[in-house]
């Protein structure tokens, strides 16, 4: 499903060289939930951005769903993300001036589907993320938890096989964090492959099967179930 082979990522050159990832090798099976845990700067988010083809590695191979994503040219990387990947960011990355429904629709704009079909898909996705009741409300007026659910709805709208979450509960209180975990559990049970980068201890003992991978200093540390 996700195969990462000997991946390195370097930023800068000479004295400013920083190795964010050092020879990472990892496999994630289809339908698996993997938690990448570690302190800030350990390389979790960088690894997620490489899996999402938001950035390219400096060396190594990343294959997702049989697609060699580590070498995808920009044009194809966008198509790959639109088809295969849903991303939930720490700061949600929503367009504040748009409504919830409009934000959820954004990934489908270039899908070639007609507007009624797009609206139907957005509605289903908002229903799944429990934010349908706020569909017409501007994102700027939402609470942190509601923004999170809007971001989940947007990530799910293209029915991706892989969901990547980058510090998804960093801006949420405990109640909303638990609600998010509940949503993730349902998605995982629905067969989605999920990779979460987090340092939230709540994810260390999830109420469903998951694999915790500790990262430190750009490398994978001890593995745990």
């Amino acid at each position, binding site marked *: 499903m996700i195969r990462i082979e000997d991946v*390195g990522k370097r930023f800068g050159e000479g004295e400013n060289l920083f190795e964010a990832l050092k020879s990472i090798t990892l496999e994630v099976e289809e339908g698996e939930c993997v938690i990448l845990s570690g302190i800030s700067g350990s390389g979790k988010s960088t690894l997620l951005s490489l899996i999402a083809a938001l950035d*390219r*590695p*400096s060396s190594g191979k990343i294959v997702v769903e049989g697609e*060699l994503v580590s*070498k995808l040219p*920009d*044009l194809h990387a966008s198509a790959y993300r639109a088809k295969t990947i849903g991303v939930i960011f720490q700061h949600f990355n929503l367009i504040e001036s748009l409504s919830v429904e409009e934000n959820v629709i954004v990934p489908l704009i270039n899908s070639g589907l007609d507007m009624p079909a797009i609206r139907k898909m957005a509605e289903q996705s908002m229903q799944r993320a429990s934010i349908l009741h706020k569909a017409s409300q501007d994102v700027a007026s939402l609470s942190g938890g509601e923004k999170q659910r809007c971001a989940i709805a947007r990530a799910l709208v293209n029915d991706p096989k892989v969901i990547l979450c980058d510090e998804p509960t960093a801006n949420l209180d405990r109640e909303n964090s638990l609600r998010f975990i509940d949503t993730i559990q349902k998605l995982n049970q629905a067969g989605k492959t999920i990779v979460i980068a987090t340092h939230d201890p709540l994810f260390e003992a999830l109420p469903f099967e998951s694999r915790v991978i500790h990262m430190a200093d750009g490398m994978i540390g001890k593995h745990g179930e």
Partner: protein
Amino acid sequence: MNEILLSSEVIVYLLSEALLYLLLFIAAIATLGILKGWNFDRFTKRQFDLENRSYLVMSIIFFVLGLKMLLLPYFAYTIDALSLLVPGAMCAAGVIDANDYGSPLLLLKIIILFLSGLWLGINRLDLEEKHYPYMKLKSWFYLLLFILLSAEIVLDILYFTHIETTNPVSCCSVIFGEIGGNSLPLGLDIPKLLILFYLLYALLVLIVFTGHYLVRIAASLFFAMIAYYSVVYFFGTYIYELPTHRCPFCMMQAEYRYIGYLLWGLLFTGTFLAIESAVMEGIFGRDALKLKKISIGFLTLFVLLCSSYVGLYYLKNGVLL
């Protein structure tokens, strides 16, 4: 420094060409580096760096070649503007013949225009794929193109620095005015030229969708040549409404509402797209139906525009020239 080099059009033109050439030169050096180390099957830091660099370099080449395409009509505008400074010149025709470098430079620019278009087509094909299948081809092609671009900048400088403002030159009425056995190619006269012009257009419309790609390329080039002579020696006289005025450049002046830019633009673009569609199908095995339709659209507009001048003149005056 002579008046030519001090004219604002020449300053803008030469500075633009020099700046673009600098970018092309940097791109050529980088392209050599890419060719030297490129191996897509590798997952090393060097290969990833080359892939990132190639994206930047090819983007630079893409934009510079696009800008150079726009500079060709500006070159025509510039030499037309110089006709005010060169004694005897009535339009760009006189200025282009002001020294031995002008005609080769114009020919080279047209060849570069076509090759640049072809490079852009191959680049587009490469970007459509996930594994850069044409990276080496387009890199070598660019280096070949760069040799021509280097010759062009040298000719540009030689041409503009060798235009005399004291020696009179021949104007278009002398250069194109004589209609003799040698003025038209293949021993053609005007009626035969026109028959060939319309026949070739009809043939092109037919074979562009069905013919072998080499036949299509040959027919497109032959049509472009016959169309050039037809405009200069027949249709142009209706644009100028003067049977003795045979010039490919005067029609680019304000007096004739700059129609020459549209006319030559339609012919060059239509011909180029016909050739590109043939190359894309014949060599790269791609579907080029859209290109073919656009090329025929451009050439049809060209033929209609040429013919309309004759038709309108006849309607207005009841006679032909």
